[in-house]
């Protein structure tokens, strides 16, 4: 079974091109945006399925003047734009415009070809669970298959799809882990796939764990369709155990069928068992280690040769299976090795990367069907198959780069998005549960998983309440990890933040209508300052607690937060950032501080925002003046040998204030060998026991960030980071996430702030030490494939 979507979209594109040409001739000139909307809708009507539920249409995009959006509507309440809005440019040739528009809407980021992967194991015997799954789909409309890689999930899905197609069902297959996959793809398939309205359509949604953000959106949409018209839709969802929670968010009642490679092996080896060849069956089990694909190859090998294969024979079989016994040039084998190595890490390879040295070798592999080409990516297929092919190819091309180096080189070239996608797909469960961690790769695996858990909590909380209890600071801190890992949730926060705070270039940001609740923190801060003033017999602050303008303090602090928020946006709004930067310049005191000078962490916060926006001591007079002031020794300035008192009594410790000030200085480009920076760094190390105290998680998060930013090796703080991640992952820590400062007597944004810091820290560590994590994963794989290697 294969659903080739590209032919359908090509058909649509041709129809629209023809229509656009005709319209151009008729109009004899440029089209207006409404005319183009009508033109595109005519074209859609000519080719799309007349479906009572799903409709594709072009409409004017209210968010972009003179823009046209392709929108999918699904009764009664699903509407979403396809990949991006298209801005109509009346000065351009309408034919070219329509073509570009289609390229953007339908082919972005790449042409897609989604079909169920062709696995050797998909031919052959039915599993007992196959008929159970088909029955449940007909009865309940949704089933979830849960199992680790190569446990036979896709095997079952392919069988079930084939069987149900025989009953007139239509089937669409969506691999969430596919880098070219999007929600638009799923629905475009549906819109363009002829269906018998009397029968059901089956969504097969694979690799839910591969892209949690997309999986959530996709499952939510499918779930709504199914609940509106249960007789028309059914869903078969495939996921590793780590993705089950995401499935439950949309399909709470889904029947879960655990998949175990052993079930596939049992079925495959039945014929052997009938020959009372128990040893062979047991040996195949041991050899495969629960991997259905290896088991399948081993059984086939045994049938042909009468003996069990070793690792090298398995690799040989796998290689010849995918090359169809066609001879390959040395260059093609070398390239195949590289693609296979990446494939075993679940990395799909950008075609232009694969072709960078030898385009002909890539053409050879594609034309022989050795690698599949979908859009701008190439792949071998299942990761087990890739591992075996890599083993074979690697031993036939002499000296080669090590697998870890190949993967790391690719990830560095491919950029952040690919790194996230790869990390999402790596099976880190075994590595992270390892009790022996010689080099630290298990720690990194754990840290990454913790960071993902924190992001999930943050996403979950954001979707439940994007205002975080009307707390703009909490929402902004929560936005930081979401900007990278869940843009949909980030946009919910952006909507709240941007409507609740107004920005103008020449004065402080202000609440749009009503105050947001982080303002209550400043009332608590005022009390702590007053207590401090009472205790302070050695020398009073110039500005006592009752002289501080709390609103001004709050708004100045929010300026820093808003700067950071906008600077980290997935798509920056340059004008808003420029206004905030201008605002910072206009409100700065002549001495360099941001109000009030008694509280240096407010200046540090604004500096952090400016640094995020790209300003530094080298480029900005505002930043330079503020950094100079922070470094000015007491009594003229706030620094006492690189130590900054909070000015807010017991609300903030000296350690966390110093950490924040140091962080701001370093982020703004003050040199690490600056005397103030050096003494501040030493102070933090000297106070390590204090900021590691239970209850001082915020201090620890800030201190760890600045230590790592100052060049300390993460291993030196590994235990502290581990403890903090453990704390932040505990759901109980989140129970106060929406409480006000008055209730918890602590900072109201503590939990999202720490979560954000932790995710940032882990991400920074992984970016610099990704090779170590890949090394750990490679070792796990090597262990798996070593069995019988020298047999």
């Amino acid at each position, binding site marked *: 079974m294969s659903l080739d979507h590209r032919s359908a979209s090509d058909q649509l594109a041709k129809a629209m091109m023809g229509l656009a040409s005709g319209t151009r001739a008729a109009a004899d000139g440029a089209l207006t945006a409404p005319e183009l909307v009508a033109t595109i809708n005519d074209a859609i009507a000519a080719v799309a399925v007349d479906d009572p539920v799903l409709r594709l249409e072009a409409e004017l995009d209210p968010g972009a003047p003179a823009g046209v959006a392709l929108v999918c509507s699904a009764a009664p309440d699903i509407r979403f734009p396809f990949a991006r809005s298209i801005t109509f440019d009346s000065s351009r040739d309408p034919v070219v415009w329509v073509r570009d528009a289609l390229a953007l809407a339908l082919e972005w980021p790449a042409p897609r070809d989604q079909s169920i992967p062709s696995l050797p194991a998909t031919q052959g015997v039915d599993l007992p669970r196959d008929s159970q799954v088909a029955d449940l789909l007909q009865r309940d409309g949704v089933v979830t298959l849960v199992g680790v890689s190569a446990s036979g999930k896709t095997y079952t899905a392919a069988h079930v799809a084939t069987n149900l197609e025989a009953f007139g069902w239509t089937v669409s297959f969506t691999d969430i882990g596919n880098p070219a996959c999007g929600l638009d793809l799923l629905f475009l398939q549906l819109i363009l796939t002829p269906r018998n309205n009397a029968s059901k359509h089956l969504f097969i949604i694979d690799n839910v764990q591969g892209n949690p953000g997309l999986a959530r959106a996709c499952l939510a949409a499918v779930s709504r369709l199914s609940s509106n018209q249960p007789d028309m839709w059914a869903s078969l969802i495939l996921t590793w155990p780590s993705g089950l929670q995401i499935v439950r968010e949309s399909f709470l009642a889904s029947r879960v069928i655990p998949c175990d490679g052993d079930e596939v092996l049992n079925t495959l080896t039945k014929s052997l068992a009938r020959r009372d060849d128990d040893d062979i069956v047991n040996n195949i089990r041991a050899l495969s280690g629960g991997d259905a694909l290896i088991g399948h190859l081993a059984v086939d090998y045994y049938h042909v040769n009468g003996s069990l294969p070793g690792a090298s024979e398995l690799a040989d079989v796998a290689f010849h299976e995918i090359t169809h016994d066609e001879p390959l040039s040395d260059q093609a084998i070398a390239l195949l090795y590289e693609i296979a190595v990446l494939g075993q890490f679940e990395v799909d390879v950008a075609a232009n990367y694969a072709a960078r040295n030898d385009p002909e070798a890539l053409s050879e592999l594609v034309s022989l069907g050795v690698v599949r080409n979908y859009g701008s990516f190439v792949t071998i297929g299942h990761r087990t198959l890739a591992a075996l092919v890599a083993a074979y190819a690697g031993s036939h091309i002499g000296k080669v780069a090590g697998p870890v180096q190949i993967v790391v080189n690719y990830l560095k070239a491919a950029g952040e998005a690919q790194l996230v996608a790869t990390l999402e797909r790596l099976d880190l469960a075994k590595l992270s549960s390892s009790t022996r961690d010689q080099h630290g790769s298990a720690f990194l695996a754990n840290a990454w998983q913790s960071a993902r858990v924190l992001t999930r909590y943050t996403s979950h909380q954001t979707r439940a309440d994007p205002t975080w209890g009307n707390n703009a600071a909490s929402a902004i801190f929560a936005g930081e990890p979401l900007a990278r890992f869940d843009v949909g949730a980030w946009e919910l926060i952006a909507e709240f933040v941007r409507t609740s705070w107004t920005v103008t270039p020449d004065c402080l940001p202000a609440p749009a209508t009503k105050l947001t609740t982080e303002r209550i923190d400043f009332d608590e801060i005022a009390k702590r300052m007053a207590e401090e003033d009472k*205790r302070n017999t050695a020398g009073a602050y110039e500005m006592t607690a009752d002289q501080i303008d709390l609103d001004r303090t709050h708004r100045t602090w929010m300026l820093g937060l808003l700067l950071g928020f906008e600077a980290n946006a997935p798509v920056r709004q340059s004008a808003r950032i420029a206004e905030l930067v201008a605002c910072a310049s206009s409100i700065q005191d002549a001495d360099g501080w941001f109000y009030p000078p008694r509280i240096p962490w407010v200046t540090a916060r604004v500096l952090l925002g400016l640094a995020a926006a790209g300003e530094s001591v080298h480029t900005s007079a505002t930043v330079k003046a503020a950094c100079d002031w922070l470094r000015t020794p007491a009594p003229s300035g706030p620094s006492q040998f690189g130590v900054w008192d909070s000015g807010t009594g017991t609300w903030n410790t000296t350690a966390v204030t110093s950490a924040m000030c140091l962080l701001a200085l370093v982020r703004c480009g003050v040199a690490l060998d600056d005397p103030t920076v050096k003494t501040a760094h030493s102070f933090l190390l000297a106070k390590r026991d204090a900021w590691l105290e239970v209850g001082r998680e915020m201090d620890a998060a800030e201190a760890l960030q600045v230590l790592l930013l100052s060049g300390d090796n993460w291993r030196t703080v590994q235990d502290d980071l581990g403890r903090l991640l453990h704390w932040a992952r505990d759901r109980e820590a989140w129970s106060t996430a929406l409480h006000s400062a008055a209730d918890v007597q602590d900072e109201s944004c503590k939990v999202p702030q720490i979560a954000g810091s932790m995710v940032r820290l882990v991400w920074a560590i992984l970016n610099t030490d990704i090779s170590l994590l890949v090394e750990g994963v490679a070792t796990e794989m090597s262990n798996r494939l070593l069995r019988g290697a020298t047999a």
Partner: protein
Amino acid sequence: VSADTTESTFLEQARQLLLDHRARQDGGDPSVVHIPDSILPELHRAAGTSLKSKVLQIIPFHVDRWNPEAFEHLVWRQVATMGHTVERLYVAPHRGVATDVLERQLALDDSAGVHTFVTFVTALPEDIQGTVGAGLWILDDETVVAAEPSTDGIPDGWTISQRPPDINAARDAWNVMVDVAEDSGDTTAATLALEEPLVLSADLVCGVADILCAGDHVAPEGCGWYHGTWQYLRLLDMVSTPTWHSTFYLENLSTALRAKPTSRVLITGTADYSMFAYVDMAATSTGSSPEITVLDLCTTPLFACRWYAKRVGRAVGTVSEDIVAFGESESQRGAWEIITTDAFMTRFSEEECHRVAKLWFGLLTPGGILVTTIRIHSRTPGGRDEESAARDFGVRAHKRAERWRPFLDSPPEQIAARAEVYARRMVSADLGSELDVLKMLEDVGFDVVDKQLAEVPGELHPTTYLEVACTRP
């Protein structure tokens, strides 16, 4: 400004510091209380008094300052006799340290109805080693008392928390540690771990290396950086030793010794007494009486072997000589039933290696067996450059050595510096694939009787070794 005024101002400032400190200690999270270590006895008393039903305690066993009759032990024994559940888990640095004191403690606890477990630092998962710090109690599953982190194992203070995340974390730590711990009833039956004396010998060997090391195959110009560091790195489990191939060595050596209990065993090249300890253990488990000789160019590892031999009461012969000269000596040809050595071949170039294999063959009597391991470079999945891997090695050594600080003379900083030198200087020759190595042994005339690849943690990267046993026909 007069001197009186200065003094007065500073006194005021000092008082202010104390007041601020106290205010911050008191003014933080209301679910958390910090107290100084100096009132620990009062804390024991208060906790014992307020306990409702059950306490779980993780307690580091500090050999040098342990008194089974100390106040804190008496309190909890009394609590147990009052009918409350008291479970204690003692964490000792390694087996065999002050066993008499620990056994006395366990006996007293047992008599009072305290349920005890014992575990060892090296048995704990690495992340837990850092977590438990200097002690942890869970009272009635609702309060955690945790020693505050410190670098020397002596807590500066204690944190009492009722925050659910802290309770959950403590409970997780307890469960993991109990999983790897032994019920106290089993401790006396447990055999000594081979690594046990390391903590006693590492400083000694390091000191001796400065005097004795004059050069060997690894470092002809002087091998003190290698032999002096080796035992620390073994203690920290950071270098390739027979321990990483424990089953392989014990099985093959035991089989050979069972076949001929009075075998002449030759260890050709060793960094310390580890290989000798394996032969000794195989001999003990099979009840055999082999004649064991250790050959090495440098006298430091020979000294270590004699130290260990005396400790376990087994005779050992030591020969300080080059393997080539020794192997070509007529008197030694065909004189040995068993030759064993760990990861020795990769100390030589490919050509030299072939010669060494021939020497081994010549040294063995017909039917004799060679038992060894060889690193297979081509299978190393390393991805980090050597420079950063070496730097990491030093940092890891520092981190691990912190946990041994109370038990070693060398401070972690010194061990880390030595480790980094080791990582930069140690060279291991690439002898090709496992097939190449096996072919070389077979070309010399050996019959390979046991072989497998083993993935081991590795020094700078995860590493694959070929474990091979082969006989002279």
